[in-house]
């Protein structure tokens, strides 16, 4: 990462002519994982967001600029790209978790319509779903025929697809350095043992979460055009448009790649790399000299395009009589298949006087995990919030109070608000579950979240003002569905006094200027300040040009929604008339990241109310509440959409989602949307998203925070309802009925 930002010529300089520098901490995200790094930036007065009450568009609700394209089917996604002469490519995947594979292409090559069949990878294959061959054909149907005609000679090898299989004494080798990684230890075990002696109560339990899928509706893939003159164009469904361009250069053997990514159907952390699909599509386009459309099938997507790792966590937690957390010891196993898995660590966001934890990866013959919206955090949340809840009941401390006692002020305040909204004060059984004979029972549970969401200097935004009054904001950034295109236009419109429709935003192309990869909720805090800076510079240039034309001074000119007012001549010009005075080339200004416009670190509190039917075991979430801060909300409707989205993904994770692997055969049993259930319209509760307006900081990303605690709150609410503590997700009716039966037996 570059550590210096060039100073804008319009900004004041320090005495010696060079801009003053200051050091700031910014988050850097690699593959969805966030670390803080120190960088140096110019210490100059730049643009400000200004007082919130003066904002006209930002911090208000407005319609996305690309909404009409999306409701009319005009929005073009990578899947939708159609190039003349394009061939459809399709993978053939290994059906076994571990095998020696030989591929016979001869029959496939004879299939009418098939133009090419190739081996993607043979020899030792290490997970179900790994692509081993590819066909390219004139139609989708012919590609399917070709794929079916490919013969795989499979020699099964011993495999391990579960924790037990992987750790067994005679387990096949999954990882050369051992099937379990060396545990990473934090804290002093002896101190913790001593601290437990001081606790009024302690609980100990094991919590587990399954592997979850990203389930982006648009699968991974690319459409690659034929390279010529050392350059190529690639349409790619990616969260990292700029990194992607670099990845395609190698297989295309060109030095210049334009990546186009106008709209994309979700990413959630799984789309940072060109992947085998990008490489193979490039090689085919290069060799066959025709454009190639290679998008994964839904099944390929489930088996080989990433997942959120599962884990088990054994936690012992103790506290004082009034609920202060004193001691925690935990051991965590992460399950990321061939990957290491991710886990945010324990005691997660709570402060515990003394803690010790040990964490390791257990490797299996399954595809590696990838970053997924708040990687490792929902897993940590489930164990910590559940254990904390169990301790609260053991101590007889209120569920809201015990949380407030062990977090900071912002969380405490947000929790109170969430408790109010869910109806905690009126709830009839707070300190004990409802153990009556009632058939239908209602319970409430809570959970907290936090995330970084700060920005960093990677974006370069251009704002152009044309003599006809047209304004264009241009930057290469992708939009995963968060509303990037819309706030790019809105920020510029706000600065120039224009209606939202007065600015055209162009995004999603490398030639539009660099932007960050979208991971770790860093996009808004990285991009919005650069957009603001570009608009600010464009406004300055416009006023300087006008001052000359009007024989006035820039300081005497005021730009607002009515156009330009010249205090010197007491004359007013409409926006159009003001722009008409510009030279034919108009004005072009560039903006870069401004530290003062972004901040870092968001908090959230969530509550869930559930209804359980003790006869059928049915669990219904009836209400969810989220109180969330995010600095300056750019589009309040869009922020609410994102909050709901995170909460719903957590609800879906809580109740339904689980990758099911048959342990004896090592096969994935639910690699489709019929058997891998996602929450849909019948499961959506009453939902309340409250933006914490006490937060007066600059912009911060909050998408990841919103997915962190919902499933934990739901599990806690189930216990509060009926006394069954479900410690293993998903929280299904069979587990609940078994729990109820065990309760009855006593």
């Amino acid at each position, binding site marked *: 990462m570059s550590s210096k930002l060039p100073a804008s010529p319009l900004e004041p300089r320090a005495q010696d002519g060079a801009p003053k520098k200051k050091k700031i901490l910014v988050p850097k995200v690699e593959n969805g994982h966030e670390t803080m790094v120190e960088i140096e930036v110019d210490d100059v007065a730049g643009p400000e967001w200004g007082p919130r009450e003066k904002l006209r568009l930002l911090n208000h609700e407005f*319609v*996305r600029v*690309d*909404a*009409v*394209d*999306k*409701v*009319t*089917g*005009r929005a073009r996604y990578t*899947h*939708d790209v*159609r190039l003349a002469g394009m061939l459809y490519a399709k993978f*053939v995947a290994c059906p*076994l978790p571990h095998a020696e594979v030989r591929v016979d292409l001869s*029959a*496939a090559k004879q299939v009418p319509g098939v133009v090419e069949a190739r081996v993607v990878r043979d020899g030792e294959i290490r997970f179900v779903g790994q692509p081993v061959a590819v066909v390219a054909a004139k*139609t*989708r*149907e012919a590609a*399917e*025929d070709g794929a*079916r*005609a490919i*013969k*795989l*000679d*499979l020699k*099964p090898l011993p495999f391990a697809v579960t924790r037990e299989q992987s750790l067994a004494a005679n387990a096949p080798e999954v990882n050369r350095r051992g099937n379990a990684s060396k545990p990473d230890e934090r804290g002093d075990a002896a101190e913790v043992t001593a601290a437990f002696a001081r606790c009024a109560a302690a609980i100990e339990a094991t919590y587990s979460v399954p592997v979850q899928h990203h389930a*982006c*509706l648009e699968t991974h893939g690319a459409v690659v055009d034929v390279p010529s003159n050392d350059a190529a164009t690639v349409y790619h469904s990616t969260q990292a448009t700029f990194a992607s361009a670099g990845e395609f250069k190698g297989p295309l053997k060109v030095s210049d790649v334009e990546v186009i990514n106008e*709209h*994309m*159907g*979700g990413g*959630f952390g799984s789309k940072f790399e060109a992947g085998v699909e990008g490489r193979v599509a490039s090689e085919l386009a290069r060799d066959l000299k025709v454009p190639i459309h290679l998008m994964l*099938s839904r*099944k390929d997507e489930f088996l080989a395009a990433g997942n959120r790792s599962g884990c088990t966590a054994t936690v012992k937690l103790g506290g004082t009589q009034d609920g202060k957390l004193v001691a925690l010891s935990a051991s965590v196993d992460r399950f990321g298949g061939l990957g290491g898995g991710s886990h945010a660590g324990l005691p997660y966001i709570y402060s515990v006087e003394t803690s010790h934890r040990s964490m390791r990866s257990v490797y299996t013959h399954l595809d590696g995990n990838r970053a997924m919206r708040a990687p490792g955090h929902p897993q940590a949340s489930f164990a910590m919030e559940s254990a904390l809840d169990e301790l609260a009941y053991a101590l007889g401390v209120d569920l809201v109070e015990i949380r407030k006692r062990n977090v900071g002020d912002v969380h405490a305040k947000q929790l109170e608000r969430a408790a109010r909204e869910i109806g905690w004060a009126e709830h009839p059984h707070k300190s004990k579950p409802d153990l009556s004979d009632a058939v239908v029972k209602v319970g409430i549970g809570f959970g907290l979240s936090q995330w970084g969401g700060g920005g960093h200097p990677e974006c370069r935004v251009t704002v152009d003002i044309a003599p006809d009054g047209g304004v264009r904001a241009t930057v290469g950034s992708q939009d*995963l*569905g*968060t509303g990037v295109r819309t706030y790019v236009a809105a920020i510029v419109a706000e600065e120039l006094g224009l209606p939202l429709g007065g600015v055209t935003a162009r995004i999603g192309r490398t030639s539009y200027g660099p932007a960050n990869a979208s991971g770790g909720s860093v996009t808004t805090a990285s991009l919005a300040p650069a957009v603001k800076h570009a608009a600010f510079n464009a406004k300055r240039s416009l006023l300087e040009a006008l001052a000359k034309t009007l024989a006035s001074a820039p300081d005497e000119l005021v730009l607002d929604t009515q156009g330009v007012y010249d205090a010197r001549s007491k004359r007013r010009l409409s926006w159009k008339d003001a722009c008409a005075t510009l030279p034919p080339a108009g004005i072009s200004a560039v903006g870069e990241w401004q530290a003062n416009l972004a901040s870092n670190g968001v908090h959230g509190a969530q509550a869930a109310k559930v209804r359980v039917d003790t006869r059928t075991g049915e669990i219904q979430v009836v209400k969810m509440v989220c109180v969330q801060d995010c600095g300056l909300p750019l589009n309040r*409707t*869009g922020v609410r*959409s*994102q909050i*709901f*989205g995170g*909460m*719903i*993904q957590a609800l879906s994770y809580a109740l339904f989602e689980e990758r099911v692997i048959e342990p004896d*055969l090592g096969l994935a049993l639910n690699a*489709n*949307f*019929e058997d891998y259930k*996602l929450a*849909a*319209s*019948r499961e*959506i509760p009453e939902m309340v998203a409250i933006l914490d307006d006490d937060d007066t900081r600059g912009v911060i990303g909050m998408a990841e925070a919103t997915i962190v605690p919902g499933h934990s709150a739901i599990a806690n609410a189930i216990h509060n309802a009926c006394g069954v503590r479900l410690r293993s997700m998903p929280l299904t009716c069979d587990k609940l009925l078994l729990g109820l039966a065990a309760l009855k037996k006593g």
Partner: protein
Amino acid sequence: MENKSHGGVDLSRRGFLKSAGGLAAGGALGQGATAAASAGLLGDGVERASGEVEIELTLNGTKRKVKVEPRTTLLSVLRHRVEPALTGTKEVCDMGSCGACTVHVDSKPAYACLLLAIDCQGKAITTIEGLAQGDTLHPVQQAFCEHDALMCGFCTPGFVMALSACLDAKPNATLDELKEACAGNVCRCGTYPHVFQAAVAAQRAKQAGGAR
């Protein structure tokens, strides 16, 4: 997930387990096991059901000639076989479990991935591209914009088609019926609360004598 109407794109689950079962029993899956043969549909060579024929479909009010095979789905026609392609209808699961490919067939909602193109002859097919009348959006489209009932937008055409069919047929649908109307649609971004708001708003707009 079982054999698909258009000829078994994937291994059927039964065939898949059958071949893998041999593995568990220590049988030889190795020699001769092919991705195709285990589905039991094809011999060692490759058979196709038949060739292409030209049919006529009425797409968004326009008669279009298109070459299809008996197994070609309506979804495949829309996305891959007409020129220019009608890519607003999305392919997400290709097996009837996500609703992304919802279109109207004679004003009723239908999953284009589950319909054979040849069965759609003589029927009026409306896709998301044909829902608006000129520049006037259908009230459901309009409400989706105003209530931010979309994020990435990949599921959006399917939701809009499902809800517009419901409201056109049943102007007084209850909220529960509206939820039922899109119960087969999946949105991974989680737009549901805004989708419901939009559906209710569209209903009001229609009742107030909106666009139509």
